């Protein structure tokens, strides 16, 4: 009886922690990026909760919808947010998570594709050139980034001998025990190497996927040159609030995945307990957000035609990881 009650208590606390992370972390990520950029430019920057205020402001406003649009436009933003929330539940982007069904890596990649399709359809529905050009660039980026992301996750899958992300992102309790031992793959350092490579690949891929610098500058005022902002140009009011929140949540999922890779790299060389894992996963996301802020202050936007060259770095990172993982033995039957 006591066992059951502690179990219920634990799963309840997991749910509460998880839901509050979903609500709090995305806006915090946005603030951290803005704040870092402001500090590097010797400005004070927005208050910590500014994205919340923005969302509340948008929620109170009325919506303006173009007469060209069909119902697809508004449904697309709803469906997009629902898909991202589903992804937040399935993807192991935090070390603490409530129960979730198996999160196959191919399923996750294609669910991200589903979310992308919804945003593309919403952009095309307005009949404006802004939306369509944004959409056109977004599918191009999607094509470039998807193989890199898939290869990165497949590399981890091959390394751990499973395509289920829950299995892949389960911490080995000690060095050499757990997933890495099954593959008979390598020493702790070798494992850390693969985790690091994939972590960097996912981080770089997320910069492209989330249309941030150096692929796209989300803070310019010329939407015609942009990707995400061009796509959401026609959205307003609550609709825009949904889209902005979905985008921020997608950002924290990607940053979280990357941070998890780094934490796993650490865990494969030294022992980390559950509490530290939890703290590290949040700290990792915040750290990556600050890193992105620094990067956006230092880097310049790449010319659109140069983007494939940047993607080549990401793909080669994933390829390296994947070939090391594929060559490192596989499961001994």
């Amino acid at each position, binding site marked *: 009886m006591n066992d059951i009650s502690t179990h219920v208590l634990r799963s309840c606390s997991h749910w509460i922690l998880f839901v509050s992370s979903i609500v709090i972390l995305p806006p915090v990520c946005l603030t951290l990026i803005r704040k870092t950029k402001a500090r590097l430019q010797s400005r004070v920057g927005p208050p910590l909760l500014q994205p919340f205020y923005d969302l509340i402001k948008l929620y109170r406003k009325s919506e303006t919808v173009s007469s060209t649009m069909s119902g697809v436009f508004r449904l697309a933003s709803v469906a997009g947010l629902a898909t991202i929330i589903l992804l937040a539940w399935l993807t192991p982007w935090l070390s603490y998570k409530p129960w979730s069904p198996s999160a196959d890596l191919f399923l996750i990649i294609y669910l991200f594709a589903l979310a992308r399709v919804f945003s593309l359809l919403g952009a*095309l529905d307005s009949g404006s050139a802004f939306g369509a050009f944004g959409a*056109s660039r977004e599918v191009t980026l999607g*094509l470039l980034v998807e193989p890199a992301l898939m290869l990165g996750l497949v590399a981890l899958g091959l390394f751990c001998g499973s395509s289920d992300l829950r299995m892949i992102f389960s911490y080995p309790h000690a060095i050499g025990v757990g997933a890495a031992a099954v593959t008979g793959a390598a020493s702790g350092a070798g494992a850390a190497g693969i985790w690091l490579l994939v972590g960097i690949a996912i981080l770089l891929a997320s910069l492209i996927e989330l249309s941030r610098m150096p692929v796209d500058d989300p803070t310019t005022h010329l939407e015609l040159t942009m990707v995400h902002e061009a796509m959401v140009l026609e959205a307003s009011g609550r609709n825009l609030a949904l889209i902005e929140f979905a985008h921020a949540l997608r950002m924290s999922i990607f940053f979280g995945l990357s941070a998890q890779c780094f934490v796993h790299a650490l865990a494969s060389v030294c022992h980390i307990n559950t509490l530290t894992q939890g703290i590290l996963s949040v700290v990792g996301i915040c750290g990556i957000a600050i890193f992105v802020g620094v990067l956006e202050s230092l880097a310049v936007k790449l010319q659109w035609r140069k983007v494939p060259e940047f993607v080549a770095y990401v793909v080669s990172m994933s390829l390296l990881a994947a070939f090391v993982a594929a060559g490192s033995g596989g499961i001994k039957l």
Partner: protein
Amino acid sequence: MNSQVVFLESLFLLVSAAVAAFALSHKSQVSDKAMSYLLCAIASFAIAVSFLGGGQIVSYETSAPLMLGVFPLTFLLDGLSRFFVAILSAILFAIGLFSPGYLSHLKGKISGGQYWIAFFLLALSMFGVVLSADAITFIVMWEIMSLSSAALVASDHTHQSVQKAALIYLGATRTASGLLCGGFLWMHSLTGSWNFASWNFAQPHAIFPALLILLGFCIKAGVWPFHIWLPYTYPAAPATVSAAMSGFLVKLPIYGLIRILIQGGLSSPEIINLMFVLGAISSFWGVLFALVQNDLKRLLAYSSIENIGLILLSLAISLKARAANLPLIADVAMVAAIFHCLNHGAIKSLLFLSAGAVDAMAHSRDLHRLGGLAKRMPWTMACFFIGAFSICSIPPMNGFASKWLLYQSLFKSTLLFGSYLDRGLFLTAICLLSAVGALAIAVFVKAMGVVFLGMSRSHAAEHAVEASPGMLCAQVLLAACCAGLGVFAPNLVSQITKIASSSTRPITTAPIDFALPIPLLAGTLFATGLVIYVVFLQSSKVRTFKTWDCGFGPLTPKTQASSDSFAQPLARIFRPFLKYETNATISGRDRRHFPEQINVEVKIVSILESRVYLPCLAVISYLARGLAKLQAGSIHLYLVYVCSTLIILLALGTIL
């Protein structure tokens, strides 16, 4: 009742229904409605037959009057053929529902009697190919199928493009049949039997007939580099015919591969690797060329090439795994192939029927003349969207279920295969497939956006109305199939495993773990979406205004991105493959700031066609011109030919 009798009766009924159809349709005035309902009735009867007998294997041999010369026609109904009969009947049923409404838009363009005779022949022969158990029956049915489909492609034969398409298609089918006949004869000389069951491709001499048969099937399936007939044929044919052809006819070569080569124990690594490479290239090539198409049906045709490539790739993985003695992977890949045949059949016939509805209502298939149909044809749009989501293999649709199995088989192969070369190959295939998936999304987002969203680009599209109820029923039925097959994939996979494991010889008993809780995910997604909509958007105040025009005055349909401009960034990346060129000329007095006329021309050259096929054809027609001298029109000369042939044959007979 004896199952053999049931089978015999059903076959007889099918034939007699078709004969009745001929008799009825031979009159000059044919009721499309009556013919369509007859087609529906035959299809539902065939569905009933395919599920009757509870999975028993039934074989049947024709008796004396129905023999071909000295050889009886033999038929076999087992799990695999039952499955394909079910796919075919479902597609035919939907086409039957769609036909009356659609054909009324083609009045005066095609002759009803001729159309229906050819269509019933096609339906009958497709059933025949699936059921045939020996090479002779197979080739007879195959020929009826090829010729009747060629006649159907030429339905609207007053257009020059249709004539060209029919000619190209005929050329492709003739070559395919020639190769198949060669392969069959060779196998007969090796084994002394026409029956597929006694053909064994594992023996060392069987590699050449196997290659001939594989090439024959590849041509008919539209695998790269033999795919060039597809993009001509599908746009030229009426939508009902292209739905039947893309939905089922191109799956028949796949069925043939499974029935003849794979069940025959093909094990030569050269042929398996050839299949692997051809499959991988077709999937990429098809989707890449689909991206730059501006004709909706041509785009769908290229997408068919992609999907056939995926199926061929799955078959190759299955064979590789079987050769490496990894039966579980062999089963997963085989299930992926068979399941994808079903899924692609449902999806592609749905998309072609929707494209047909758009063509009939907006009077164009050209993406530059469509747009904004969302408000005018909402139901057609919903069905097309479901089909497009499925073909992009987006969960929870059916396309995802089979593609996931393919990914799983590749992933497990990379884990379990011994040689590093094989592992690298599988890893490359995973990478290629993810690029193919992303390109497919680009293709179909373009199709969805340009056809249905935004502003109408032509007067006809602006005044389009929703398709007739019958046409919608057919589409809704197929769309429901796409969604249903996706959500209930876990249950289906266990059924298909039984069929597949009988095709991959070392039978495994371990069931495939379809570890995706798709119903749960679909339910969660739908519930979350509903909650978000109700909580946030339903009560939101909405003001309708115009699209943001930067203050330059009203936007026109031409200010939207066109199909070409949407695909341009991607096409630029793949310039070396596509030979993609854009020429823009801007003219006017001060052409930089106040252009008076802007001309943009996009040019794509198919290298394969211009550099390989056309030179080959030129050589053949040059030789043919030389041969034409033989036909001089003089009876004396012909008598000399006959006499000399006789003498040569007699001489050969005495020598050999």
